[in-house]
């Protein structure tokens, strides 16, 4: 028998069906019309939303596709194409009620068959397909209900399937047989904008979907969900690799929205009446990952030497051009799983004398530390460069290996050959604890060598039904990271989104949302 439990903010709490409490004010009524041009640096590796975790794809696909659940303004899970979910007392059955009357861009009405086929495709080709492994069966008792039957308890399921990392895009059933990478273009979803064209290396274009069925469970937009209203006739996503050219485009009015404006440029343009800047902090963790499996960093004393040698604020100030926040916690303050700062001060204060003692205890004899950093993301290279200098200051020999992003990715996934790797974790902390802790646990740990305490924390996070127990697991993870110096959380990085002044009611978010804003 299924006992009705409702899903709220990733918690299993016996309360009424949650409907949004937090929503954005739209101010005055909007005005329809116009072609909004948004510039982004990268072009999407694919528009097959389910298969990619790339931000360049999300920027576009989340205007076209919607999911059963997604994240609200403060990144808590909320229904989108679903009305809600009943979770059985044993945590093994999820009965998802779908919204009715929702139309796909091809005119077809969405049913549970589409939802089921989309989820099953995701399990096969999705960018986070592994999270659906506990789902043993997908059942569709009627056209507006999808039932997920789990083979084992997984309290993180709602957090996982509401994540926009590689969106759990719902598409027509007949599209779901397409192999990875082939579902788009064209994209057929239920979102407020419908796909028009994709020209690789140039742009993608979407148009307002006039048969869009807004979610009446909400009053206004709310994160990726809410009552969405499209005002622009069309939105063009231009791919402009050169930062200076993107800024110039915004200044001349050829571009109306930038997904990210250099911090230095935003300072320079602060008096420009035609441009509005929207700083967003936090955007990502800045971290230094260590390989605990190989070479110097296999030695915990040496890792502690690195931990003590670093002036974290200096790294942040330079790597972020000044848009940063010092917070050593491995979750964001104000979120459900924030583990607090107790006992962290000793690990986050630079102490070169202590660092040298740790070096001595490690038996360091002038061996070369291999730091790999990519040149594709400036903050990574800056953080790597400054960290190298700070480590040299305590007498370490450091080799800074600068490569392009794919080469760094290939290098760091090897068990040997690297010691230190600067990395911004963007979407993971936004999603909550699962992919942060999970990054250090399981088959592919970022630190290469599995740590039993982190594995235990990850297992508890994935199985404990009580929120307090899961919070304790996150705290256990954080303590272990610091105690064993497995990685360094340098600080929180911010970004600046920017629009022309005539783009009204814009609100910055994880991606620039082109619904519920309009031209003056």
């Amino acid at each position, binding site marked *: 028998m299924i006992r009705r439990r409702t899903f709220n903010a990733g918690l299993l709490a016996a309360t009424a069906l949650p409907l949004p409490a937090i929503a954005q004010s739209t101010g005055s009524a909007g005005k329809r019309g116009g072609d909004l041009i948004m510039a982004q640096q990268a*072009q999407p*590796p*694919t528009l097959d939303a389910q*298969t*990619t*975790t*790339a931000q360049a794809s999300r920027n576009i696909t989340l205007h076209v596709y919607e999911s059963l659940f997604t994240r609200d303004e403060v990144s808590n899970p909320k229904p989108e194409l679903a009305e809600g979910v009943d979770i059985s007392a044993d945590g093994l059955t999820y009965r998802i009620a779908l919204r009715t009357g929702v139309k796909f861009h091809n005119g077809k009405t969405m049913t549970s068959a589409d939802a089921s086929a989309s989820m099953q495709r995701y399990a*096969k*080709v999705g*960018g*986070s*397909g*592994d999270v659906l492994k506990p789902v043993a069966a997908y059942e569709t008792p009627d056209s507006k209900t999808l039932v997920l039957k789990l083979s084992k308890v997984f309290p993180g399921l709602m957090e996982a399937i509401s994540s926009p*990392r*590689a969106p759990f895009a719902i598409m027509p059933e007949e599209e779901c047989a397409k*192999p*990875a*990478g*082939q579902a788009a*273009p064209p994209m057929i979803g239920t979102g407020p904008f419908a796909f028009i064209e994709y*020209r*690789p*290396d*140039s742009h993608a274009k979407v148009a307002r979907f006039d048969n869009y069925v807004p979610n009446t469970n909400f009053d206004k937009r709310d994160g990726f969900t809410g009552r969405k209203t499209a005002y622009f006739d069309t939105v063009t996503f*231009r*791919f*402009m*690799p*050169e930062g*200076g*050219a993107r800024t*110039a*485009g915004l*200044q*001349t009015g*050829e571009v109306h929205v930038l997904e990210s404006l250099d911090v230095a440029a935003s300072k320079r343009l602060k008096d420009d009446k035609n441009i509005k800047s929207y700083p967003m902090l936090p955007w990502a963790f800045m971290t230094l990952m260590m390989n605990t499996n190989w070479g110097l960093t296999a030695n915990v004393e040496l890792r502690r030497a690195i931990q003590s040698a670093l002036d974290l604020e200096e790294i942040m100030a330079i790597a972020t051009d000044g848009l940063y926040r010092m917070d050593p916690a491995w979750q964001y303050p104000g979120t459900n799983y924030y583990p607090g700062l107790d006992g962290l001060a000793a690990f986050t204060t630079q102490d070169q004398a202590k660092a040298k003692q740790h070096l001595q205890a490690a038996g360091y004899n002038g061996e070369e530390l291999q730091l790999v950093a990519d040149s*594709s993301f400036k903050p990574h290279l800056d953080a790597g460069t400054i960290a190298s200098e700070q480590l040299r200051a305590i007498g370490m020999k450091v080799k800074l290996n600068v490569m*392009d*992003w*794919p*080469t760094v*990715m*290939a*290098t760091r*996934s090897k068990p040997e050959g690297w010691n230190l790797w600067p*990395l911004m974790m963007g979407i*993971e902390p936004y999603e909550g604890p699962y*992919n942060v802790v*999970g*990054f250090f646990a*399981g*088959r*592919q740990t970022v630190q290469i060598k599995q740590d039993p305490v982190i594995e235990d924390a990850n297992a508890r996070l994935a199985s404990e039904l009580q929120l307090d127990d899961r919070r304790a697991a996150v705290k256990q993870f954080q303590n272990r990271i610091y105690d064993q110096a497995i990685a360094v959380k340098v600080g929180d990085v911010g970004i600046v989104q920017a629009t022309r002044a005539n783009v009204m009611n814009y609100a910055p978010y994880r991606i620039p949302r082109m619904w519920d804003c309009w031209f003056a």
Partner: protein
Amino acid sequence: MLRLIALRLLAALPVLLVVSLVAFGLTLLVPGDMAAEMLGMSATPADVARLRHELGLDVPTLVRMAQWYEGLLHLDLGRSVLLNQSVTEAIMQRLPVTLSLACLGLSFALVLGIPLGLLAAAKVGRATDQAAMGTALVGLSLPDFWLGLVLIWVVGVKLHWLPTGGWVSPAQDPLGWLRVMAMPAGALGLTQLGPIARMTRSAALEVANSDFVRTARAKGLAEPRVFARHVLGAALVPILTVAGIGFGAALGGALVIEQVFSLPGVGRLVIGAVLRRDWPVIQGGLLMTATVFVLVNLLVDVLYLWADPRLRER
């Protein structure tokens, strides 16, 4: 002439074979993987392996090599999974952008560089010569990406004369196309102007004191006409050589300029493919660029015969 063309085309085959081998070799030597790129940094090896299989990337090297050369024999450069289209089609869609950019840039360099070189030769040793060669040197020394950004700042942002980037098809809007191409072609042309002007000056000076030039002057021809009609004609072969090399350099420069001005050409295609490790596109792009280079060299050889009748008799 046909024999010459046939011989040159035959000689190009080994070049293209080497390029194809290097292009294929890169796929073995350079780390990185398209499936890993698609999935992102949290993907497990199992996730990557699953997607590699889904995308058909787990085919053994020798089989891939056999497929690559079998395809080449049928003029098929393979298929890009990421673009979801054939590589030939992807390149052909973008080649007009790159070729038109390189041609416009080179035309700009020729139209300005040759008169500048002739002027310098006519006024050799004087202030005009110094100024012309100084201008050429500045163009030669400036990196094209920097020049592009400066043009965007001055011409686009400050003066609002031209758009700062993007692409308009000439078939849809010829004037719009010219407007979006003016700055990138100008940036590219300015960097090619230097070598052309300097070579023109040097070649013109070599023939400026020849008997036929003296005869032309003795007939009473005005100095500009002497240079335009007699000196330039005789100096054309080395200028063509530099222009041929310049076209190759312009093709290379176009890769950078396309990035700066957001033009959807072959350069952006290949750079994007490199960043995503889309090997069929990288291989095809390299081979196609080499082919264009070979054909341009052939064209220059043919132009030699047109420019210098003595060569036709050899």
